[in-house]
């Protein structure tokens, strides 16, 4: 049993829904109790879809449990077949239906429907949403895709985009265009937008582009084995990764064409002098493994940030993130416990968080700016405008998104120079945000005169360090967006020197010590 406040991933059948809802002509018959239909609103509200997800739920109730839930399933399946006329059906159970062991797959098989019926085994008490999507897509491909002669021209499939994915809609467009410029046509994009008959033709492609390993890797591996289709290993998020991706595609497709990179503004925007203020900003990264890996590279190599910590919530990518964290010299945080992430961020006091919608809330609570780089995301992360994460336009979008929450260059200096201006102060936040004040943890903590060291947990020493009044007053003059770092550095410095009290001198000695 695990106590959970918020979850990063839904149950695996929601992953299956993401695949089904992304596709066309496919229907999902889900053996599930009344109430599990809440999942429809993820798609109709958060993603603003204008159609109901293609899911029929059996919505059994307590009174059905003593009777015949198996028959209820068969009726629902028959009705869905008759009403929606899908090309293929996937069938499965949600967490509760798994316990009553009706075997939807077996039941559906006995019904003799004249369309493919694909059973899903998604263990609800062990696995989560991404696994559910990955496994569902794999099963669909395994059942429907047939070996075929390769197309005459070089083509590839795009694998992994689903409904409710973070910017999947725009990434597909960006990468499809990029490939087209390289002279590679997209054979099938799946699951998003594909019909079961499209899936059947996947074997025609020469290779696969794996856009989202979290939701497409099993299918990519299967196609590699079965259809002799190699797949790309670089996820083209960021300027450097996009260039590597292009090189990989050129090698796979055997082409030498050069591509026009004029649209890539991110590199110049980042080199231009106004961006100097980004140098060495300490950022904390959290999200799914793939997006965190990409963000780490962008943060360090393309923005000039310092990566202060990183982690992911999907254990499937723990090994990758551990290796990457080692390379970046930080502690990896592999957890799906929201409170643990919050504690890590509180301890590290980064200047910015690059995370999911959960970290956006942590950031608001701690007064730390945050940009969203990964699912899970909320309604505001499904923008009306074109805003991919992948390819050259994706790199531009990421540059804008990441600097938006920050206090910008000269404003930052002015805040340093005139610290006690009554209008132009900490609590006002970046001026282009119309005054977002950081939220104090509690009114009492904000008001009280003492600045207890224990609110910044885990400096190396366990001794209590006391801030003397003058040092504390000086600390408060430091703008909010660097104050956490100043406090942490000073306390670490004091602990290393074996000091128990922090005076004004200690503060400035620490500042000199950490100067860069």
């Amino acid at each position, binding site marked *: *049993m*695990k*106590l*959970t*406040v*918020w*979850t990063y*991933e*839904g*149950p695996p*059948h*929601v992953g299956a829904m993401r695949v089904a809802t992304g596709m066309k002509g496919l229907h999902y018959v889900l053996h599930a*109790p*009344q*109430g*599990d*239909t*809440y*999942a*429809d*609103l*993820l798609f*109709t*509200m*958060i993603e*603003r*879809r*204008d*159609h*109901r997800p293609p899911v*029929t*739920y*059996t*919505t*059994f*109730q*307590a009174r*059905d*449990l003593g009777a015949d839930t198996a028959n209820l399933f068969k009726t*629902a399946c028959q*009705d869905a077949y008759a*009403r929606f006329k899908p090309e293929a059906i996937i069938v499965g159970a*949600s*967490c*509760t239906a798994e*316990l*009553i062991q009706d075997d939807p797959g077996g039941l559906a098989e006995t019904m003799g429907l004249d369309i493919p019926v694909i059973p899903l085994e998604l*263990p*609800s*008490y*062990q696995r*989560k949403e991404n696994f559910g999507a990955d496994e569902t897509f794999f099963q669909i491909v395994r059942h429907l895709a047939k070996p075929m002669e390769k197309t005459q021209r070089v083509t590839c499939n795009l694998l992994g985009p689903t409904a409710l994915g973070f910017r999947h809609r725009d990434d597909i467009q960006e990468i499809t265009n990029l490939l087209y410029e390289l002279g590679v046509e997209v054979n099938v994009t799946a699951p998003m937008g594909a019909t079961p008959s499209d899936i059947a033709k996947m074997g025609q492609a020469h290779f696969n582009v794996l856009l989202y390993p979290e939701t497409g890797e099993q299918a990519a591996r299967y196609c590699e084995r079965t259809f002799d289709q190699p797949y790309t290993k670089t996820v083209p998020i960021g300027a450097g990764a996009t260039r590597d991706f292009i090189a990989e595609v050129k090698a796979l497709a055997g082409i030498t064409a050069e591509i026009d990179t004029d649209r890539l503004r991110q590199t110049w925007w980042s080199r231009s002098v106004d961006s100097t203020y980004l140098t060495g900003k300490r950022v904390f990264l959290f999200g799914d493994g793939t997006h965190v890996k990409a963000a780490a590279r962008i943060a360090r190599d393309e923005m000039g940030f310092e990566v202060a910590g990183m982690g992911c919530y999907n254990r499937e990518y723990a090994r990758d993130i551990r290796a990457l964290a080692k390379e970046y010299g930080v502690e990896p945080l592999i957890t799906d416990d929201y*409170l643990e992430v919050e504690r890590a961020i509180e301890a590290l006091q980064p200047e910015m968080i690059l995370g999911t*919608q*959960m970290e956006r*809330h942590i950031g*608001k*609570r701690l007064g730390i700016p945050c940009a969203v780089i990964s699912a899970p995301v*909320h309604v505001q992360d499904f923008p009306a405008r074109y805003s991919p994460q992948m390819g050259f336009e994706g790199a531009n979008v990421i540059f804008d998104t990441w600097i938006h929450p920050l206090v910008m260059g000269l404003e930052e200096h002015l805040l340093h120079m005139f610290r006690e201006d009554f209008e132009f102060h900490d609590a006002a936040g970046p001026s282009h945000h119309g005054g977002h004040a950081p*939220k104090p943890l509690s009114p009492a903590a904000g008001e009280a005169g003492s600045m207890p060291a224990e609110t910044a947990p885990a400096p190396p020493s366990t001794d209590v360090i006391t801030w003397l009044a003058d040092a504390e007053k000086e600390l408060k003059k430091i703008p909010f967006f660097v104050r956490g770092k100043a406090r942490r550095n000073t306390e670490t410095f004091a602990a290393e020197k074996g000091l128990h009290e922090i005076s004004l001198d200690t503060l400035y000695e620490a500042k000199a010590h950490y100067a860069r």
Partner: protein
Amino acid sequence: MTNQMPPPPSLGCRSQPILKQRGQREVFCGLTGIIWLHRKIQDAFFLVVGSRTCAHLLQSAAGVMIFAEPRFGTAILEESDLAGLNDAHAELDRTVAELLERRPDIRQLFLVGSCPSEVIKLDLSRAAERMTQAYAPKVRVLEYSGSGIETTFTQGEDACLAAMVPVLPETDAQELMVVGALPDVVEDQMLGLLSDLGIGPVRVLPARNIDSDTAVGPNTVFALTQPFLGDTHAALERRGARHIAAPFPFGEEGTTAWLRALAREFGVSDETFDAVTEAPRRRARQAVAQAAEPLSGNSVFFFPDSQLEIPLARFLTRECGMSAIEVGSPYIHDGIHGPDLELLPAGPQLSEGQDVDLQLDRCREASPDLTVCGLGLANPLEAEGLSTKWAIELVFTPVHFYEQAGDLASLFARPLRRKSILGVAAE
């Protein structure tokens, strides 16, 4: 008193046949009630014993996440918990100990059963008894089911309140108990009205914290402010309390009828009643008249959601000039919904439960001017050209009693106003 009475009901709908279909029900489960109950009862924590789906529902249904650590959480069952129930109980004890250690401010803990905990027959009442003994007197531990196999949406609140009834202190005092979670501001308005009428002492269920003096006994009379409290109603009657049936306090007419039933019970004179209610009634009528202008002459179709549908249909048809095509409710309980059904003008199809696909067929066929439905259906129906009102907002917004009557009408009017502002032709 003024003579601006609404038209008398022609026939009413109380004895009308009810359409019952069996198929997919597009509704929330009772866990959803935790979203408002955990704010209402300020020293309570709601621990769902369930699956990742339960946790995901709570966070998705809340729409926005609450910044502070919420006073609810999910003890997610894992593979090992399913193997042996004894181990599951031990795990639950460990989880609760961990929770109460971190939240020393918690005085009431609700263990909330879910579909999986019920299917594996994890006996939460046994767990609650055991924990009450372990943590008394500091923390009281109760349990109820919010599972989808047992409850639909607002029935979760019903189950929660019903679980509190047996542990209420006994009293012989002649008291009024008002039952149903109301927003604090609305509750205060109601208490003000009752006190002006000279009705009292008044107790509320749920109270804002465990130290309240809500008690029950043979001289208690109770009134419901929410139409979904059937089990709580039964539990209170088992404790000897007597129900005062009345239409629900939505709109000017409903509020007046609700108050009048109480006034009669407590022997309040007509003069006092008129003196206390005249000003707020006038304000409510005025506000409704303004807000309901876009509604007048339009038709409405209710999908089942919260059991508020019948009283709201009564409000829309009698005070806002709308006509009802279909009024669907997850459950229809004659003892509770009867007074509203009597006032509801004959005409609409009443339906209980649903087969959502068949109901959508009827809705498209009828092409109502306004469709009241859940979040899963609203955008798809908008895309088909129908105007919709998300039903969940009616549960999350202060809508009871006189001062909110205008707001209630505006909630329904807003989709129509918006459509006319945006210049989308209502198809």
